């Protein structure tokens, strides 16, 4: 599965999964079938950029510029994270 993931891949949420702000607990949550995940702050920043039109490369470039971090370092972390979230059926590419 990770072999299929490139910087050109367009990432989107699987149907029935979404990022939502939890107003009462003041945090972001991933709503999924019969479970809710709490993304860590970095994952939340990545997921806020997942809109079904951006490529993985565009998401990485955006994060690298906003957090003034090297693209290759951010890119590696984001690939690992997205692959994990695909295994958990949160994201599809």
């Amino acid at each position: 599965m990770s072999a299929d993931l490139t910087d050109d891949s367009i990432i989107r949420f699987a149907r029935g999964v979404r990022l939502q702000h939890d107003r009462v607990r003041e945090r972001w949550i991933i709503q999924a079938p019969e479970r809710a995940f709490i993304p860590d702050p970095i994952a939340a920043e990545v997921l806020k950029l997942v809109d079904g039109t951006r490529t993985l490369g565009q998401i990485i470039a955006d994060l690298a510029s906003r957090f003034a971090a090297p693209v290759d370092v951010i890119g590696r972390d984001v690939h690992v994270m997205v692959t994990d979230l695909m295994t958990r059926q949160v994201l599809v590419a």
Partner: protein
Amino acid sequence: MTETILSPMSLLAELTHRCPLQCPYCSNPLALEPRQNELSTAEWISVLDQAAEMGVLQVHFSGGEPMSRPDLPELIRHAVGLGLYTNLITSGVLLNEKTFPALVEAGLDHVQLSFQDIDTANAELVGGMKGAQARKIEAARLVAADGMPLTLNFVIYRENAARVPQMLEAAVQMGARRVEIAHTQYYGWGLANREALMPTAAQLEQTTEAVEAARKKYEGRLTIDYVTPDYYADRPKPCMGGWGRRFINISPSGRVLPCHAAETIPNVAFPDVKHDTLDHIWREAPLFTMFRGTDWMPQPCRSCDQREKDWGGCRCQALALAGDAAATDPVCARAPDHERVKAVLDTLPAEPPPFRYRRYARATDEVG
């Protein structure tokens, strides 16, 4: 010490106890609510409003068969509008090409569809409804064709335990994204049918192996939730994630409960949404405060290092097995009543007795 009161995460809305099926392991109480006692649409709408305000994130529309309620699409639409994640827990026998589009249009997020077995003859024997299996398979097809995420739920018991591998294979073929392989929990009807349903230790081991093999085989395609029968465990489950910590159950008549079996708890008033607000009930009703946190715990729980992990196990199970809802869950190997669990397993009959099917009590039984 004052216990911290968290906001509830999850609401189980039991819209009705009416159901075309009669499964002998049903989680509903033995005393089923008749239709005339059910909350109105407006009352359910108010429950949803209050739940969202309190911080509930997911609402599970259940029953009975929730599709028996004609206002289901309206309730889903309202919940969606509040930002709640909507889940339909259904037998599927009323889900067809006439009824499903209204649920899609309302914005339903997910369907959990139950099967009694993968073997049609046994499934229909257990559910007590001829033709149910074909309807369920059609329901699964409709949900999968729409693209809505689908979970299949298989309750496991003595007669179907050997077929877990076929159930998992069928789940993949039907396009399910999740499957629950859930051993019967012994409350309500399940408790009444315990001797007929309880698997052997060897059967339990087989189902565990089947689930582990399938988790590897279908990784990334199928999420498998596996629930074991806790009679065979030596540590209790953290029932509901702790009493009054995460979960609210609303019965068809509007009773507000910490779990779906809580109506068995004696000597306490059952609060309901017709007479009080959900938030006030959650914070202050004795039914919720009585087992919240750790202050209520007896020994050995009170000084146990697991007390904030398993929360003392299950109150309804303590009541059923030890005769005291405030006892340590007898499933725990450290519990004074642990021998009672072993005694149940040691005295299982070689031949299972006939089922006592889930049915409404006859009118003559109610007055008698």
